[in-house]
């Protein structure tokens, strides 16, 4: 198929960006979206132009690097996939596709479609861990049974890949889904309960500091999340936060 691409180009953080239009042809249905971008970049390089910069790495939907806003939606029109798992069969010959970086104050653009998501790392550093040393002198793994249901819910929360789609989907650019996923993972496990209060207070404080917006329960994040992280996590984080605040 032949496509028209309108892509955000920006040389670096200090210059102004703009949309630029490109044409690509002979795109096959079996290509992934990023393979289509590879075709464009090869085309640009052969003409002596600079290729479009975008983050990507594993190309199997798990590293969380890729993060394109495609036709106004984080990771594009398909559900439950990252940009790298989106396939061109979701588009039609002659389509115009608009490709932008994830937009949020807390995610400044570095170049073209590459944004700085280090705010997510700092939220995790504020408390997204259990304070045990990695010495191996811990008790046997089976000494504390964990209810399967809780272990499974903890796991589902932990499958967050930190891509930032929740922030990009939110009209407030809120990072509540991301933060609550980590808070929930640990809150649901006996190992994480011990420092649950400190964790939720510190992580929320850092989240606010980074300039993310508030949650107004529109639920857009849950719909756009490639890993299906549930809105219930936000509710759980709010409970945890309240519990910790009134102690």
């Amino acid at each position, binding site marked *: 198929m032949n496509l028209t691409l309108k892509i955000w180009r920006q040389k670096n953080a200090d210059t102004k960006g703009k949309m630029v239009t490109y044409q690509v042809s002979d795109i096959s249905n079996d290509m992934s979206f990023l393979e289509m971008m590879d*075709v464009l970049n090869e085309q640009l390089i052969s003409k002596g132009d600079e290729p479009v910069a975008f983050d990507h790495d594993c190309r199997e939907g798990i590293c969380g690097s890729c993060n394109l806003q495609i036709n106004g939606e984080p990771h594009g029109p398909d559900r439950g996939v990252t940009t790298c798992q989106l396939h061109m069969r979701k588009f039609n010959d002659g389509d115009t596709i608009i490709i932008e970086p994830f937009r949020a104050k807390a995610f400044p653009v570095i170049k073209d479609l590459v944004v700085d998501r280090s705010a997510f790392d700092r939220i995790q550093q504020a408390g997204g861990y259990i304070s045990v040393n990695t010495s191996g002198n*811990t008790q046997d793994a089976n000494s504390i049974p964990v209810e399967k249901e809780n272990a499974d819910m903890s796991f589902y929360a932990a499958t967050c890949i930190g891509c930032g789609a929740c922030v990009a989907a939110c009209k407030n650019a809120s990072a509540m889904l991301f933060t609550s996923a980590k808070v929930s993972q640990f809150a649901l*496990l006996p190992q994480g309960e011990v420092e649950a209060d400190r964790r939720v207070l510190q992580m929320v404080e850092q989240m606010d500091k980074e300039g993310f917006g508030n949650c107004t329960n529109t639920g857009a994040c849950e719909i756009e999340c490639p890993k299906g992280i549930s809105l219930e996590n936000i509710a759980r984080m709010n409970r945890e936060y309240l519990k910790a605040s009134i102690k």
Partner: protein
Amino acid sequence: MGNFESNAPKGPLAEKWTKHKNDINLVNPANKRNIDVIVVGTGLAGGSAAATLAELGYNVKTFCYQDSPRRAHSIAAQGGINAAKNYQGDGDSVYRLFYDTIKGGDYRSRESNVYRLAEVSGNIIDQCVAQGVPFAREYGGLLDNRSFGGVLVSRTFYAKGQTGQQLLLGAYSAMNRQINRGKIQPFNRHEMLDIVKVDGKARGIIARNLVTGELERHSAHAVVIASGGYGNVFFLSTNAMGSNVTASWKIHKKGAYFANPCFTQIHPTCIPVSGDHQSKLTLMSESLRNDGRIWVPKKKEDAEAIRAGKKKPTELSEDERDYYLERRYPAFGNLVPRDVASRAAKERCDAGFGVNKTGEAVYLDFSSAIMRYGKEEATTRKINNPSDAKIKELGKEVVEAKYGNLFQMYEKIVDQNPYETPMMIYPAVHYTMGGVWVDYNLQTTIPGCYAIGEANFSDHGANRLGASALMQGLADGYFVLPYTIGDYLSNDIRTGKIPTDSAEFDAAETEVRERLEKLVNTKGTKSVDHFHKILGKIMWNKVGMARNATGLKEAIKEIQELREEFWNEVRVPGSTNEMNAELEKAGRVADFLELGELFAKDALHREESCGGHFREEYQTEEGEALRDDENFMYVAAWEYTGKPADAILHKEDLDYENIQVKTRSYK
């Protein structure tokens, strides 16, 4: 030059590690504060090592090319992590894990290292659970296990199909705790482009800030390389796009021996190549072989009809299918080790029984598992006389709970529903057993330079068993390196900060800068990917699943010519002082173009078949690998002397004192 001794402690196998830990020197806590350690790579090995070293009190700097340590490719590991816990009571033990690993590696790994790996495996699980890794559990609240290829017990712990992700996020959280304390300084979007040696010792690195393009000097008392494997030398592999050999190759060129480069794992269950546009291959976890049965049509006509789209796999009856692994290897069936399963798939496809358009695919079929689970579930739920449709429905639910994310991934890529029609799979490059040579302490032949995880060669011999990569990465990082590095650093307590304004740093930085400038100033006509793809084709066709002397000699010549063309014809747009993805790729491909040659040279010199290294000249009448223990029971460690063609071979003989070396059989 550093020492080329295994430094394995003397004494009985089971006591070596404990004794060694008691014998080696320690650094006292106050002195640790004065010692800096650089860790390159933040996957399971690098991330866990950085966290543990920082906990111990060292000042750690981590480097990764990704925008966050959490994105290292360990995250993509799916199936599980082995540990000799024997929770299932099925006869597992440290010795059995050790034995399986040595045998799985076709008797080409070091006994002492492998035993230690098995010994600490149980600790890893304890540690990860304490850290909040949400492993799969049973209804009783205890940890669940599954089985993986090449073994007869269930010792694999897992978190659905995202075990690597959960373990990496565990290590990442341990790192975050130390970053928060200021004990780890993370340098993300940074790439190590050379090591700096002072008085023969590793004393720092030159790194490029990938956002600004600036070259930076970082000094330390020791440098740990944890940058993963080099599977991307094949262009198409299950590795991440950015996975590269650069850090390992740079230290190799500065004196670290490179061991067994030809030992590469071709994983049997990956989604087949669909066309020339393909940028990477996607793995379907080996855990699927617990429940999936692998087959091709018995009759060639059926295979041809399927390829032409005239027949569907579901139309073939049981007796029209050839479950070739179950047929050839009745004892292990679909759970033979990876190298065996891959070769068997290639054999069937080469013989004309392949099933997709290209003829390079076999089926992985879940229909019998779905019915089996469905019946069990119907019994549990007290459903009397369930219809086939009901059984199927219940069975699908069970299969979905086990492998849901993998099935979804398959459907998104291939556009077929694997619950209804069998998956198509084919082998793909996945893991490299070879790597930087290290001694028992995980030190390379450069004093003060260590290599851990997939980057080193140490534990998997000629073939790695499934679910053992995660085990090795975490064992090295959490439990081995933090001890052994102390022995070396104990001599550095009075050294003080290493200055970065020395002649050695000047020279290293100049060398790096000139090379980068050469890449952008060549201004040729062909893109980096153009060269990478050609290299990949040479590697896959002539240095891939089956190799022979003629092909290997051709490959060496072709790679040499390609390398020369690369340096004359490559086109890298943009400049060195900005974010420049093409420049990053160019540097990595330049290194692959050197490594590829050494890889082929190693494969040519090893005149035997073992594990993942299959030389067509050396096989049994039944087509199984024919090992030559008389002449090749050694680790081939190559010393760089100016170009890959001139690399000098050093041999580390392998002694098996505790295991009887046998012909490896899974029949």
